[in-house]
Structures are given as structure tokens and as C-alpha cells.
């Protein structure tokens, strides 16, 4: 469905070549939900733009649904949908139905098809309550739902999402994640998502590709990512003045009024560290935490 082979993109900046994407390769199969993540400037957006035909690669091969997005742009874009969280092309003065109609016209749908598809998307994305309001009066979360409806108007096989949850509140994020999961499970749409929000990745994607400095660093099931630091535990004490422990395998850090000890359980047991803490006479609250996916990603990004 998506095939990327030795893909490279260089930009010229003041006469110097800057490598944004450096010889990456991967494939995505139908029905997969893939998170394509990495720190800022890693090359995520550049890659997604090459996959959608916006940018031309410097070298390498991209195939989406069997076509080159650059040479067969129309064939590719008529079968994919894309939502870019930081951009919008909605018609602000008109209600969502008119923007959907515009997209329907561009994708060559008949009047009847546009009416039927609009009706079904309005229901699927729960747009009914604001379907008659001009888009300029909608909240960010409501607008995002309209953006997704526009991306789905032509029944795409793949949905590309570039930071779709940016700026949304937690309820809108939750709604978006449920919607994307539904799209995949009920309509078998392939999802290719870039996001800085770990919640999006955990809720929607079963595979994660991590890119850094333009190169693929990790490509594995999302569930396995957490196991990369399965031996790590955090012990949080609700005091910021706690002294260093005399254990070489424990790292002490400060975090919002807490003292945090990071323990490598393959080298020292949590019980040993707790015993050492209690021996100091500390009587405050103690929390033992497993690392979150965010912790895993922070560590991987720093590596």
C-alpha cells in the first residue's frame, strides 16, 4: 500500500545541502495504523509530504497504492485523504456542508453522491449539532471534525494525519482518537499518523516508526516500545530536599517539587532502594512508577 525505498530529501540552505530525510525505507500494509514519530526537525513532515506528492524526493522511491505520488499525483491524491493539523482550507463563511460539497466537486462526485456522502459523514463524525453554523463560529475540535470529514468525502483508502490533535482539549482529543480507531476498525482505512501526543499513538496506532535526524531509528509494534525500558522504575518522593542515595545504579533528579530516583531493576532491586530511603527516617509519601510511553520516547529521542 505504501512503499518507501532509500528515500532521501535534501534542501538547499544558503548554498549548503541540508539532509531532511536520509535514505529511509519502510512499507505499510492495508489496514495498518502506523505512528510516524520523532522530535522536531526529525524529517516526519518532509516524509509525509513526499508520500502525498507535495514534495519531490532528491532520490529514492515512493509508491502509494502502486503509483508515484509525484508522477501520478492525481491518481494518488484521489485515493488518499490528508489532514494537517496546522493548516486549514475550510470555507469560513459557509456551513460544513458547503465545504464538503466543494471537496465532493473536486473529487468528481455527482450531486447525488455528494448529498449522500455528506449525510453519512455528518452522522459518522457527529457534526449534526453544528451542521448549519458557518465554520468561523466553530470551536477548534469541531473544525477538526469537519477537516476529517473533508478528507473522507471520497472514501479514501489511506488517511494521512500530520499532528491532527494539535491545540485540541482533552475531550476533543479523546473524540478524535475514538473516531480514528473506528475508521480503521469499521472501514479498514490505513492510517499514517504523525503526532507529538503520545496518547494519539497509544490509542490509534499498533505500529510505530521512529525517525531521528532523517533516519529510521525504530520500526516495531507500539506495544513493544514500552518494553525497551521495562527494567526501569521511578521512585517519587514528595520532597525536593531528599539527599543522594549511596547506590551507584540509582539516578536522582528533581521534578516539580519531588525527588525522583530512576532505578535499573536489572542491577538493583526496588526493595533495596526503598529500604535505603526508609533508613533515612523519611516518612512522606512514596510512589513507585513504571515508565510511561512518553518516558520511553523521551529516552529514545535523547539517544
Amino acid at each position: 500500500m505504501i512503499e518507501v525505498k532509500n528515500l532521501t530529501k535534501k534542501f538547499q540552505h544558503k548554498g549548503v545541502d541540508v539532509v531532511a530525510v536520509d535514505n529511509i525505507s519502510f512499507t505499510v500494509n492495508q489496514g495498518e495504523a502506523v505512528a510516524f514519530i520523532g522530535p522536531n526537525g526529525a524529517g516526519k513532515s518532509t516524509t509525509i509530504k513526499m508520500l502525498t506528492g507535495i514534495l519531490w524526493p532528491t532520490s529514492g522511491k515512493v509508491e502509494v497504492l502502486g503509483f508515484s505520488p509525484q508522477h501520478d499525483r492525481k491518481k494518488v491524491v484521489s485515493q488518499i485523504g490528508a489532514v494537517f493539523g496546522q493548516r486549514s482550507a475550510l470555507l469560513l463563511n459557509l456551513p460544513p456542508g458547503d465545504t464538503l460539497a466543494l471537496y465532493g466537486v473536486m473529487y468528481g462526485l455527482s450531486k447525488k453522491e455528494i448529498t449522500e456522502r455528506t449525510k453519512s459523514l455528518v452522522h459518522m463524525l457527529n457534526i449534526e449539532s453544528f451542521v448549519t453554523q458557518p465554520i468561523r463560529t466553530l470551536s477548534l475540535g469541531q473544525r477538526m471534525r469537519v477537516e476529517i470529514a473533508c478528507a473522507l468525502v471520497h472514501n479514501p483508502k489511506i488517511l494521512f494525519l500530520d499532528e491532527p490533535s494539535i491545540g485540541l482539549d482533552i475531550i476533543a482529543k479523546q473524540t478524535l482518537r475514538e473516531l480514528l480507531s473506528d475508521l480503521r476498525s469499521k472501514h479498514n482505512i490505513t492510517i499514517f499518523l504523525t503526532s507529538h501526543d503520545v496518547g494519539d499513538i497509544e490509542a490509534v496506532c499498533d505500529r510505530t516508526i521512529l525517525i531521528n535526524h532523517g533516519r529510521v531509528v525504530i520500526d516495531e509494534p507500539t506495544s513493544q516500545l514500552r518494553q525497551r525500558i521495562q527494567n526501569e522504575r521511578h521512585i517519587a518522593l514528595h520532597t525536593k530536599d531528599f539527599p543522594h542515595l549511596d547506590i551507584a545504579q540509582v539516578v536522582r533528579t528533581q521534578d516539580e517539587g519531588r525527588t525522583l530516583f530512576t532505578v535499573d531493576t536489572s542491577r538493583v532491586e526496588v526493595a533495596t532502594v526503598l529500604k535505603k530511603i526508609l533508613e533515612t527516617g523519611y516518612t512522606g509519601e512514596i510512589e513507585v512508577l513504571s515508565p510511561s510511553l512518553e518516558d520511553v520516547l523521551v529516552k529514545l529521542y535523547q539517544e
Partner: protein
Amino acid sequence: MQKALSFILIIAKNSSESKKKIFFQMINHTVFLLFSVFLYSYVYELLPQLHGRLPYPNAIWSMSVYFIAFWLGLRNLERAFRNDIQSGNIEMYLLRPFSYIRQKVYMQIGEGLVPFVSALVLSVAVSWLFVGLPDVGMSAERWIVFVAIIFILSRILECIMFVLCGLTGFWLQDSQPVYMVVSKLMMIFGGAWVPVAFFPEVLQKIAEYSPFGATLAISYAMYPNFGTHVFVIILNVLFWIVAMGTLMHVVSRRAMQKLSVNG
């Protein structure tokens, strides 16, 4: 064609939501028209010999059609390209199965449609009311048909010219300086400031046969010798459409390969 029309009508609907804005634009247009009618009347009284070069009714119609073309706002295409390139919003348009240029042209026509139709009605009404129909050396019916043909062709050329200006933004980032030069040449050679009939003869020829003058060839349809020049005018515009259209095709292909949009 059906697709284009539907696209344009949806954009026109979006743009005409601000009815007050259009109302004030049309007041502005009417004031301009009336000012031209009275200013030219005064100048023709002072300099009656001008009638020999371009009769007063023809001068009024010439100015009037320039104003009509102005309201379609095709010159805004350059600014639309510039904004898209500088903001990176161009990527949103490249995700659709329509060429970027077609989308922007349809959007601009849609945005200008209601002001254009309003200005057309007002201009024809004011000009007819004050000076009647101009004598252009052919019957009114034929004149209207040729005016429509030349208007459409010269608008196509205007689109191409401003798209070309906008495309320079892929190399320059800011295409405004190019736009300033091209739009000023169009205004001068199209007779926006002073009808071309008042130019010295050499300059008249340059204006008439340059691509800049051809974009406002509709002004020439108001001149007394239009009946004998009509096919030369149409061929001239057609020539520049083919030449500039070919150039636009080549430049746009290169521009898309040069595009860079940051995350």
C-alpha cells in the same frame, strides 16, 4: 465545465456572505464611474480636438470596461500565490486532484464573481445613461458578441500573466516586485490611466501588440475603428495566450519540483 462552474459558485457563495462589503465596493465603483464621466466631459469641452482621436462616448465606455475587468480581481492571483508559498498553505491545495493553478484561478473568479456582475450592470447602466452606445463601426449585436469574446480571451491572458508573476515566488519567495512591474505595464498599455488612443502613434502600436496591452484589449473594442480591427485584436490576444500559456506550463512544472514546505 460543470465541475468548474460548481467550484466557482461555491466560492462565490462563501465570498458574498459579506453583503455590506460588496455594497460599499459598488458605491465606490459608481463614484469612480460618475467621476470619470464628469471629468472626461470637462476635458473634452476644454479640448474639443480630442473628439478626432477618440469620441467622448467611446472614451467613457473604454474607462468603464476597464473598471469592470478590475472587479474580477484576477490581479489578486499573484498575491494568492505569494501568500500560499510564504505560509506553506500551498500544500493544502496540492492534496487535491485538481491542479494548484486551476484551484486558485477558480477561487479568484468565485471571489470576484458577485462584485464583477454588480459592476458590469452598474457600468453598462451608467455609461448607457450618460453617453449612449459608442459608435464602433459595427452593429450593436455584433459588437456585443465580439466584446464578450474579447473580454473572455483577455481575461484568460490576464490570468496567465498574473499566474506567471505568482510562480516567480517559487524562486524569489516574494513575487511582489515582479507583480508591481507587470501590473503597472498592464495599466499603462491597457489604457487604464489614459486611453491608448491618446498615446503617440509608436507607443500606441507597442501598447496594442504587447502582452500587457492585450490583457486589456477590451478597451480597444470601444474605439471607433473596432469594426476594421476586430480580428487583429482577437488574433493578437490569442497569440499571447498561446505564448504565455506555454511559458506558464513550463514554469509551473519546474516550480512544483522546486517547492519546499517546512514542517
